[in-house]
């Protein structure tokens, strides 16, 4: 997983909780990297899981909620780093539809070692976008957060329903425009 995900995460912990909490979760996790991350590096995604689990224990907030919140935060960081993607799109649906076949494709060109999920889209009904998340890692919550962050960025009124799927880490997001 790219270092910028970790630095963003710790940044969020420091801001939303405290420096102390950030320190605690790092110390409590058994991290090969020792918890020192640089955005240009790459680290095992397990470290992220450990950090989140520790944070949940310490704060009593469920892991899923934490990851989702992080996703929202991460989205603001991502668009700060790659503003061109946002500039190219006027609505949340439009940018969300481009994640799989454009944004992540570009990301992979920059970071050949990035590990990215895939999204499948269903757009048969007007005003509704269905995204099916699939990944070798369990970051559906992160995806949900990113989707929410994206909707928030555009200030749109869209309902996001998440439906579990039978296959492993996959998840189905039903996004409906509210009138």
């Amino acid at each position, binding site marked *: 997983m790219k270092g910028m995900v970790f630095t963003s995460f710790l940044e969020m912990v420091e801001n939303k909780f405290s420096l*102390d909490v950030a320190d605690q979760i790092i110390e409590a996790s058994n991290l090969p990297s020792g918890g020192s991350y*640089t*955005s240009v590096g790459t680290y095992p995604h397990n470290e992220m899981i450990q950090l989140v689990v520790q944070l949940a224990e310490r704060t009593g907030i469920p892991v899923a909620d934490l990851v989702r919140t992080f996703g929202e935060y991460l989205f603001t960081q991502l668009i700060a780093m790659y503003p061109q993607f946002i500039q190219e799109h006027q609505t949340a649906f439009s940018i969300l539809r481009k994640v799989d076949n454009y944004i992540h494709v570009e990301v992979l060109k920059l970071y050949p070692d990035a590990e990215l999920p895939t999204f499948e889209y269903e757009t048969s009904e007007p005003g509704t976008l269905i995204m099916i998340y699939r990944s070798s890692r369990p970051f559906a919550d992160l995806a949900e957060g990113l989707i929410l962050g994206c909707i928030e960025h555009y200030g749109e009124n869209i309902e996001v329903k998440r439906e579990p799927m039978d296959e492993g880490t996959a998840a189905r997001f039903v996004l409906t425009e509210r009138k």
Partner: protein
Amino acid sequence: MQEIEVLRRQIEREKKARKEAEQIAEQKTREIYYVNQELLQLNDQLEELVKERTAELSLARDEAIEANRIKSQFLANMSHELRTPLNAIIGYSEMLKEEAEDEGVEGFVDDLGKIHHAGKHLLSLINDILDLSKIEAGKMDLYLESCDINTTIQDVLTTVSPLVESNGNRLEFVILQGVMRTDITKLRQILFNLLSNAGKFTKQGTVSLTVSLEAYHGKPGVSFCIQDTGIGMTPEQMDHLFQAFKQADSSTTRKYGGTGLGLAISQRLCQMMGGHIAVESVYEQGTTFTVWLPSSGSNPDCESVLPEEGSQSYLDEGHNTILVIDDDPAMLQLMQRYLSKEGYAVIVARNGQEGIRLAKERRPSVISLDVLMPGMDGWTVLTTLKSDPELAGIPIIMISMTDDRNLGYALGASDFLIKPVNRDKIISVLDKHIMERQSDSILVIEDDLATSQMMTRMLVKEGYRVIRAGDGRIALECVAQSIPQFILLDLMMPNMDGFEFVTELRKRDEWRSIPVVVLTAKDITAEDRMRLNGYVENIVQKGHWRREDLLEEIRNLLIGARTNR
């Protein structure tokens, strides 16, 4: 204390992260450097490779060119070797066939005819191959000469018309009067190829040849348009056109024969002469080939002898057009030949209906009409034309086997001729009906009375008005009184000689365009020529001219002068 500990650890982590980031940065920098290095090297290699390949290619090209040259050389030699025995086969088979005919050995006549025919076919094939290889070997020479367009085309038409008509086709033509500088044999060959293709690929249709003046990129030239209503070609078939040995598709060979060399040769010949061929075709509807050749030959320094652009319209101007309506192709061709020699544009119609249609469309100045025709006969055509107020004014000359002149005149015919009609007769009748021609006057300037009288007689007989002047000074007075259309000038004369006369004549704007032909007994020196150059149309030596040639030249010059007016 606790807080300091946290901060220390935080700083520790940050330091470690920074070091790691620096390491990564350094490593990336190195990677970039190496990749760059590799790229540079690759670039060098590529350049090297390109050089190598270029050298290889140029060698291959040289080899190919050389191989092609050798092939062409071989073909040229071979063709010659083949032609010699083939000529013997053709000659002997023809001779034997005649003998067999004489001796009544019918069984042989047929077979010998086949040998003869096959031999000739083979010969034409070999000739084509020889031509093509000559062109490709750069050994085809051009012989540019002054070419009378009309005569050349008539020649081609005579050769090709049985071929075209054998498929039940009608051959139409609009020919142009004029002279161009070109290689006559090659022009003939090109036109023959295209016309015979048109005839071959058309059944029960029309093949037409239209010759017109046309400038291309500002260069004066002549365009020959060969149009047919035959099988046409698809765009795919046209893609392969002009390639040697290519026919539209392989079934063509089976159905129509041929080698696929005609177009390739025609195009190469055109290009050699500084021209080009274009093609347009609609599948199952017909094909149009257009050949354009410069009128001054491929040599741009050569002055064009053709009338300037714009004079082209004389072809269509009603007052010079004659419509010939006759069902007999031989008659049409004859008339075409006679009349276009006189500088008229000739339109032909094979039957009454078409004649009426063309009369409406083209408004000819005179119509010549055959009486006996299948379908609508001449009388019906005559009454139809005379009852149309817009066409009633066109003089109609009836041509018939039987003397029904009274009926003809009663129905409104202007003249009545009985077949067979000879050339002079038809022309004099036509002349009678073409006003312009009657006003043509010729000034004969000649001090020798006998010569002057002789010339006058000859010209008057042709229907010209003649004015005579005994020397240059008198001639100038004549011109001042009334401008002649043409001047025939002697050089050695008392008072004012021919040289002085033309110099004076060319000083006045309105006199400058009168065509002058010098007829002299003087031995013309290069200096004389220089003095007359640009002032006179032609110099003819007394005793070295033929009556027909001179008359023809006068006619042509008069047409030219008329169109320049």
